[in-house]
């Protein structure tokens, strides 16, 4: 496979630039969030690790873009099979952390299979939908619903990984709508869901872990117990609000380093950023994300084939859902679910998988004028 000049010219440098800038903002904020208390040792190396992961991720991204995404289409089912197996393995022998089994220990590094599963899901489901053809609009065969809907959902809830489960549901709907499932069916499904909530609500509630219940209660009423379950949301709002118009200044935030803010360098990193950069900084950051998402949709619109279009929509939707749920959570508009802010939150697996996803997106855009071989 040769790299011709046309491919370099058509390469989606803008998306690459955006995600690198976002990751660097993340590294900077991680540095600030994890700076030590006075007299409590030196700077922790989280930011350094994140930088190393960034380098690895960029390499991975270029490797992905070297290949035409048609290979992903061709290999989608075996890859999806591997993903399902990984989810099973993690259930059986995963490492437990914070009441959930999400991690797989591979000696040197431990990683979360669900981080990669979501990409495999997008590839496989997009491929499956594209094989259905234009004329079969209106419904998805039952086996498709089971294989791509129920099966992964059950495995994820069992872990439990509520965040990825919600994401999967969202992606399933978005992709189905994009494919052109009749509105009647979707409306009916939504109605059915709404009616069913009171009946299955308590079953759902009983199935939740205590910390998940607490998060929901805290979301409904953060003042219930300011030092207890409402603590995360309250402290996050204090951090963001105290940033005011222009922020307290870089390395001047206090909520994170003084440990008022939990998960400061992962789930609540946006709060740390907001405290130091204020409303002005937040608007700029949101602006960068907006460009990323709109460009993702534009890529979908320009994709040369349906599978490319569906993958681009899936990946963009994935970034967007994570972004909205994370920011909504830190702003106290949504319950606390353990979802990170794409590219900015600390976390190697997550960064790598997001770069791979972005790589696929770039690959689709880069090859928008190319024909099937």
């Amino acid at each position, binding site marked *: 496979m040769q790299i011709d000049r046309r491919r370099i010219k058509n390469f989606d440098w803008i998306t690459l630039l955006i995600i690198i800038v976002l990751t660097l903002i993340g590294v900077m904020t991680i540095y600030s969030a994890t700076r030590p208390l006075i007299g409590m040792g030196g700077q922790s190396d989280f930011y350094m690790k994140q930088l190393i992961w960034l380098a690895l991720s960029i390499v991975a991204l270029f490797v992905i873009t070297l290949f035409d995404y048609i290979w992903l289409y061709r290999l989608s089912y075996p890859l999806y099979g591997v993903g399902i197996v990984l989810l099973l393995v993690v259930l059986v022998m995963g490492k437990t952390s914070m009441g959930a089994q999400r991690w797989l220990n591979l000696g040197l590094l431990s990683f979360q299979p669900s981080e990669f599963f979501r990409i495999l899901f997008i590839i496989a489901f997009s491929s499956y939908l594209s094989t259905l053809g234009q004329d079969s609009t209106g419904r998805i065969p039952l086996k498709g619903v089971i294989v791509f809907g129920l099966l992964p959902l059950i495995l994820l809830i069992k872990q439990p990984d509520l965040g990825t489960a919600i994401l999967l549901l969202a992606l399933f709907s978005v992709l189905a709508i994009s494919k052109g499932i009749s509105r009647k069916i979707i409306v009916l499904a939504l109605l059915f869901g709404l009616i069913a909530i009171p009946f299955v609500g308590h079953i759902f509630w009983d199935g939740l872990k205590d910390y998940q219940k607490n998060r929901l209660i805290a979301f409904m009423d953060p003042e219930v117990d300011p030092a207890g379950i409402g603590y995360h949301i309250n402290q996050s709002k204090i951090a*963001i609000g105290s*940033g005011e*118009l222009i922020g307290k200044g870089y390395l001047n935030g206090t*909520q994170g380093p*003084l440990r008022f803010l939990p998960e400061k360098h992962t789930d609540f990193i946006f709060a740390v950023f907001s405290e130091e950069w204020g409303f002005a900084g937040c608007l700029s950051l949101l602006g960068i994300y*907006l460009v990323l998402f709109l460009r993702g949709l534009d890529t979908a619109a320009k994709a040369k084939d349906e599978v490319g279009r569906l993958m681009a929509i899936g990946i963009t939707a994935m970034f967007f859902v994570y972004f909205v749920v994370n920011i909504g959570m830190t702003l106290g508009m949504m319950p606390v679910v353990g979802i990170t802010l794409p590219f900015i939150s600390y976390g190697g697996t997550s960064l790598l998988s997001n770069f791979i996803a972005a790589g696929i997106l770039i690959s689709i855009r880069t090859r928008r004028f190319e024909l099937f071989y």
Partner: protein
Amino acid sequence: MDTRKKIQLGSFIIAGIFAVLCLRLMQLQVLEGDKYRKLSEGNRLKIVSTPAPRGIIVDRNGVPLVNNIPMYSVYIMYDPAKGVDTETLASFVGLEKQEIEAKLSRKDNSPFVPVELKHGLSFQEVARLEARRSDFPGLFIQTDVGREYPFGKVGAHIIGYLGKMTPTQSESPEFHNLPPDTLVGQWGVESLYDSQLRGVAGGKVIEVDALGREQRLLRDKPAERGKDITLSIDIGMQKAVEDAFGEKAGALVAFKVDTGEVLALESLPSFDPNQFIHGISSEDWNSLIGDKHKPMMNRALQSQYPPGSTFKIITAVAGLEEGVITPDSKVNCTGGISYGKWTFGCWRHGGHGLVSLHKAIRESCDVYFYEVGRRLGIDNIYKYATALGLGSDTGLGLQQERQGLIPSTEWKRSKRGQEWYLGETLNAAIGQGYVAVTPIQLALMTAAVSNGGRVLKPTLIKDPKDIQQRSKIDLKPETLQLVREGLSAVVNEEGGTAGVAKSTIVKIGGKTGTAQVVGKNKGLSGEKYIDHAWFVAVAPVEKPEVALSVFVEHGGHGGSAAAPIAKKAIEAYFMNKGLGKEKMDTAKVKAAVSKESDNADR
């Protein structure tokens, strides 16, 4: 719907959600930013106030009258939601379970404000608590500045005591910046000069982490120590007065004649201000208030009785100034005079024979002063008595004073609606009848007669910068000379009524007095019906420096009951002063010597 339109719709949804997020950010950061900024500061900052050491009060010779001592209180940060094992806590701090529960469930407790469990712990108790404190998170010990009064009851009415702010005080602007448990002056000088003694509490602003661990000191404003106050009183003199009174109740007030400085002010029986340091229990307070000997009453300011013969000083001054008598005017005392159907007797039933002013003062002849009073008329007596400070508040400011009463024809007409009778003038001329004074008024009058007629505003501060003069009456030097000679004769001459006050240390002059107790003449007896004894004194009599009054409740005769107390007080003052002077002279010599040696080195 075709693909393009769906993608366009997707863009609109994204844009819409972005708008919502931006609005929320605007709400938190712009509209409510100020509130969250304060909350984050509140998270981060702990403000600890450091109490200011209270100023020390010393007497005129530099003897400290109060000590600052550390005082420990134990507090708990109580969270009603979490609850606390009151039983264990009770045994832990040495209180009853019910007491703790009562304190924790008080309605005015506010969340996040520590509740005081116990006040005034001993150092041993504190050490024991500190060792086991980790068993009770939220429990802490606070050190405050407390007071100790080494002289106990002596001078207690002047020095006063500290106590927690009363609800009325915490409302008043004078105390508005003080923490709720601050000790403030509640009595005496501690209260009168509280704002100076108090100082300014300092504060530390400390950055803390989420676990409350201190990270760094952001600001440290040191406490400003309260100002020390040097009182005009001589504690040695006060002590001598207390000893001289023994079990008797009464009061003594001594002034420095030319400045109005209070040298001593005792009211007995007294109370022990140390009782109030840890907050007096309601039982103790009620027993103090209910005590029939009234220890909390400041008799020097609040006892009001007829001055008896001490008032003859006024009558004599008025007579000489108004020219109704001369030093040589003589009255024949036959033991009494008759006026209408009444007889006015002299205390010496046999009479004094021919009496001049000098002898009349020395032997306190009533008949002589009846005659002077008759010649003057009540309104002249009123004029001189009020001009010399009687019948009105002296303005000491320590406590509410009683006004006393100097009658006049005008007074009787307006207050009683009656005409004035000559018989009442005769009674007033010897300080009986309607006339009533307080010990401090009488001492101030004596000082005024000794300093040429100036009535000074009394002060409790040594060497006052501005001496305030309330009024001045021009008295002829001869008048003053004659009165002084009379006062000297009372003590130092044969036949004087207060020979017991004669001192070898300093020449004292004085005048005895007896305030009759109503009911005695009706044949009742017992301690309750013994007359009150008065004595006023000046020393040294040639050029008075000290003027004082002594009042002994149910003491009997002024000469026997009150004069010895005056003598001891005056002697104590001059002895202490002599010692002080000697000390000062030694210091001067030392300074001179070191200066000389400095010069020699050069």
